[in-house]
């Protein structure tokens, strides 16, 4: 086992006016680990994700990230340039709505190639070959490489967004309801794909979802949030099969079968 966490979040606090979005949230994420954050709408899970990614200012707390070169960087106090660089190279962010995470005016191939270009790859032939490989990896026909994402179905767009994020082999990927809004059959395919890619590339993931079935399938461990606070955390099957907190018991008992 590698003996160092990739990410340590320490006492993160965020309020919107008098509304508490995150209260004293702390956790660690280890290489290759998939952490699920569950809770109903308004529980603060998406705010937490955006705060970790530096898309949102926080009131207090630290987000300590161990970079590929072994330095510990606090993303909260890091400069915008430093943070942007890490987000582009070592991090990925998969949005719930693919159109927010894709460049809709650019071809599928360009969407995959963009992050590679951002880290200095310029050879057109190589970029195109890599894009073709990734389209296959996410089960989109390579013939569609020059098409605009808006001509894709919702499921295809989401798979393209995943390819766009994973192409630079990030060490951490954050996902906000990655299967939300997709048909059940499309969800199953996406979940299976995500599960496989995450395993193959040994990437650490924080996935926000309100779907406990998705959490069961993808996450090694879970944090349950309510009103900005983590009420319970632990191994995924422990939480779902032996929930201790009243709110977790309510969540688990509210679904038909997970």
């Amino acid at each position, binding site marked *: 086992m590698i003996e160092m966490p990739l990410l340590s979040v320490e006492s993160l606090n965020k309020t919107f006016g008098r509304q508490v979005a995150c209260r004293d949230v702390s956790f660690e994420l280890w290489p290759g680990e998939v952490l699920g954050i569950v809770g109903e709408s308004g529980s603060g899970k998406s705010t937490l994700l955006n705060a970790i990614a530096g898309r949102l200012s926080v009131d207090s707390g630290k987000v300590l990230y161990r970079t590929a070169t072994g330095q510990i960087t606090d993303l909260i106090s890091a400069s915008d340039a430093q943070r942007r660089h890490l987000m582009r190279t070592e991090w990925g962010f998969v949005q719930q709505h693919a159109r927010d995470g894709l460049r809709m005016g650019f071809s599928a191939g360009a969407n995959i190639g963009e992050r590679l270009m951002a880290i200095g790859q310029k050879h057109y032939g190589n970029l195109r070959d890599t894009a073709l490989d990734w389209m296959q990896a996410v089960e989109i026909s390579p013939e569609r490489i020059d098409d605009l994402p808006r001509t894709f179905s919702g499921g295809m767009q989401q798979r393209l967004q995943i390819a766009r994020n994973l192409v630079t082999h990030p060490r951490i990927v954050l996902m906000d309801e990655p299967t939300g809004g997709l048909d059940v059959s499309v969800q199953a395919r996406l979940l299976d794909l995500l599960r496989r890619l995450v395993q193959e590339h040994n990437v650490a993931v924080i996935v926000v979802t309100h779907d406990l079935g998705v959490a069961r399938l993808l996450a090694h461990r879970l944090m349950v949030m309510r009103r900005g606070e983590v009420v319970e955390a632990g*191994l995924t*099957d422990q939480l779902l*099969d*032996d929930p201790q907190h009243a709110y977790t018991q*309510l969540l688990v*008992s509210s679904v038909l079968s997970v």
Partner: protein
Amino acid sequence: MSQEMIRVENLGKTFTLHLRGGIALPVLRDTSLSVAAGECVTLHGPSGAGKSTLLRSIYGNYRPQQGRILITHDGHPTDIVGAIPRVVLDIRRRTLGYVTQFLRVIPRVGTLDIVAEPLLARGAPAEHARTRAAELLSRLQIPEKMWNLPPATFSGGEQQRINIARGFCADYPILLLDEPTASLDDRNRKIVIELVDDARRRGTAIVAIVHDADTRAAITTRLLPMEAVGVAA
């Protein structure tokens, strides 16, 4: 004497049902157990005696409030009660297998891959894992034409046998069996009994729950009688 593989000490587990006014259901109290390599200990007692709760606690699935459960992992006793998720997952990947009668189906993954997965996760070469998975599926009489299909649409008995194949594929040093032969026909039950016996002779430490008396008699080397915990006076 064979190496001790599981040591349960003074385990206590109470379920608190917050949605039912916080009612407390004590299920285990002061439960202790030791299982050595090459033993098959069967938990025996009426419904509600806490057999499944004990088995799930040993697997790290349920979280007891008292006591400890030492699992011999990499040659060292490791307490799975309260262990952090990474440690529990590592124990499960390399030491501890759990077989129930219910297969948790993963969308789109074929039968052979489902069975081979635990062995792959232990680091075996893909070819070896698939060969071993094929042997087990053949032995459990799953027709070869089904091996590449995801088992979602298979019958209950077929899914159960696939789950058994999956549980035995990785040759874990410890196996937990929760009603592995329930709803199997005689012929398949006999095959499972042979699998359990083979594993035990190879030195696997086994804890089982088996309701069928003949199967129990066939696999058990020692019984652990269990009784329902009364509400404390």
